[in-house]
């Protein structure tokens, strides 16, 4: 039985939905992901225009990026190297020879009226990426190909009421982005994930982002559009059935949205199929605010891109020596690095997962490198600092204390200069901008009283004030010492080591060892 609700009204109208659990109980979910990544080169794919982010419109263009007649493209060697690097990291085969192709279509963000891409001969093919799901389950996502291409210009639609594409009067186009090198990584259909398909999709995109950053080929900031995911979803009645018709939700720009978009499409397509209708093969738009997708463009004749080999570019035939040279410089892969760090740090599976999910891996790594113990680094970042960041609604890494500061704080505790309670006050001071932990310790006078004679004097004073306590202790009621310890801690405003104070109390009443 299906339970059907209605999505909130938005562009394109409300559509019936089937409850997610119900949908996945009755249909087999298949997903596929196409991720575009802007490579972190200084110049464009086929010309020397700068790729720097945030420049004034149309100030980073050349005759090539504008598609002016007679302009000739030349391939950026570093972009090819990055493409090979990505391919190797995804365990792909690197083509011995590959070429570029023209993908012909008319759209004002592509002034040449074609996008230079790779079609039948991608630089890398047949690989996979190991991802780890939230509960630690490993999952291998098969990669069909990774190919080189160029980004398009950026259109801003003006006029109309909504500012979105529909209803716009005209568009303003900035070609600074046109021609920035892209690698598109395409998975094979991901089957067998069932109800976990949305989680697999998110974990894959997150793992790919981590990988790209580790490789140093892109900052892969989704919020800046440096990494964009197209999410394919289809349903079929059972795992034995042929693949169903898929939809392609374009430009989903956060991990969370990738997960939500898959969930939404599963619920929506289940309702379409339940109603006895066919899912349309179409592109769909993702709406971040409402969490729904709406119909975009139905695949049709217009999708005949008439690919043909780009005559202005000669084939790319990376020598095996070059490929091996690149392979030799590959960094440790994120999944392997995590396993190694977990071993070195002695974290449990659960602790490590929490650290990774909280995005604290690099921060803790830097804190440990700065001298903190792994346990202390995790305690401060995952505890006090995570709470503070949460209260302030900022990323923990943007708090005004970094790995060095936390390592310094941990060092002060470890050396016994301050105790744990004081460390919290020190941290508070550091976060309030009062200086480094050591400076805050001095400024606030927070050091543990380690001067033995001062402690002895304080103990004697407290014992004199409570003469009955000494009697009780001598009489065997050692617990009575607590009252004296409390008085000393109060007198020193908590700046004493309570354990040491207790020892002194017992010594002074002559009950040591009793």
């Amino acid at each position, binding site marked *: 039985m299906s339970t059907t609700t209605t999505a909130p009204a938005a562009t394109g109208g409300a559509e019936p939905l089937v409850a997610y659990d119900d949908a996945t109980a009755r249909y087999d979910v298949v997903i596929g992901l196409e991720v575009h990544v802007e490579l972190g*080169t*200084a*110049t464009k794919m086929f*010309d*020397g*225009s*700068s790729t720097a982010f945030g420049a*004034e*419109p*149309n*100030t*980073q*263009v*050349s*005759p090539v990026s*504008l598609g*002016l007649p007679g302009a000739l493209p*030349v*391939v*950026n*060697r*570093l*972009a*090819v190297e990055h493409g090979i690097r990505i391919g190797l990291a995804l365990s792909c085969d690197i083509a011995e*020879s590959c*070429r570029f192709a023209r993908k*012909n279509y*008319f*759209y*004002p963000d592509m002034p040449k009226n074609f996008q230079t891409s790779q079609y039948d001969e991608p630089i890398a093919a047949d690989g996979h990426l190991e991802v780890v799901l939230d509960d630690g389950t490993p999952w291998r996502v098969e990669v069909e190909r990774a190919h080189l291409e160029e980004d398009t210009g950026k*259109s*801003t*639609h003006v*006029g109309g009421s909504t500012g979105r*594409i*529909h209803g*716009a*009067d*005209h*568009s*303003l*186009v*900035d*070609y600074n982005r046109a021609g920035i090198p892209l690698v598109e990584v395409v998975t094979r259909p991901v089957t067998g994930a069932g109800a976990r398909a949305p989680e697999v999709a998110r974990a894959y995109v997150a793992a790919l982002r981590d990988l790209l950053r580790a490789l140093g080929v892109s900052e892969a900031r989704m919020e800046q559009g440096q990494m964009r995911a197209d999410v394919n979803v289809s349903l079929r009645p059972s795992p034995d059935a042929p693949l169903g018709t898929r939809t392609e939700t374009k430009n989903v720009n956060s991990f969370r949205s990738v997960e939500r978009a898959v969930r939404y499409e599963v619920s929506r397509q289940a309702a379409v199929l339940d109603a006895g209708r066919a899912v349309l093969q179409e592109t769909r738009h993702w709406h971040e605010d409402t969490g729904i997708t709406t119909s*975009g*463009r139905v695949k049709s*004749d*217009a999708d*005949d891109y*008439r690919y043909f*080999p780009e*005559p202005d*570019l*000669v*084939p*790319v*035939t*990376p020598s095996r020596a070059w490929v091996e040279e690149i392979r030799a410089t590959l960094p440790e892969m994120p999944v392997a690095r995590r396993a190694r760090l977990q071993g070195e740090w002695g974290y449990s599976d659960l602790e490590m997962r929490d650290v990774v999910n909280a995005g604290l891996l690099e921060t803790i790594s830097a804190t440990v490198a700065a001298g903190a113990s792994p346990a202390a680094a995790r305690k401060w970042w995952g505890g006090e600092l995570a709470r503070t960041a949460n209260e302030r609604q900022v990323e923990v890494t943007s708090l005004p204390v970094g790995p060095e500061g936390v390592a310094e704080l941990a060092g002060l505790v470890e050396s016994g200069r301050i105790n744990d309670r004081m460390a919290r006050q020190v941290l508070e001071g550091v976060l309030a901008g009062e200086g480094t932990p050591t400076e805050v310790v001095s400024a606030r006078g927070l050091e543990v009283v380690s001067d033995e004679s001062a402690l002895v004097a304080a103990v004697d004073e407290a014992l004199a004030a409570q003469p009955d306590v000494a009697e009780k202790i001598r009489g065997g009621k050692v617990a009575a010492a607590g009252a004296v310890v409390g008085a000393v801690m109060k007198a020193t405003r908590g700046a004493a080591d309570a354990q040491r104070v207790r020892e002194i109390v017992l010594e002074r009443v002559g009950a040591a060892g009793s």
Partner: protein
Amino acid sequence: MPVLSTDDVARLAALARIDLDPDELERLAGELDAVVAAVASVSSVVSDDVPATSHPLPLTDVYREDVVQPSLPVDDVLAGAPAAQDGRFLVPQILEED
């Protein structure tokens, strides 16, 4: 028998956004057919072991280094624009199909 029908030519014209009237379609179908037939004669002289050639030049791996070159001045960039606004190309909304 012609390889290209007027329907084929009409479809190609639509894909290329070229507006052709029926007379032109008829004429071009004939001309393009002759072109295709001429090119097709190549296949009669190559055997299966000759790989298709996409690039006639005996060149591969022509690269440039990743070094920034100056951009065109923005006035030159926009000189060819039918209309511009705020340093950007102003284009009609052509998005019926999206």
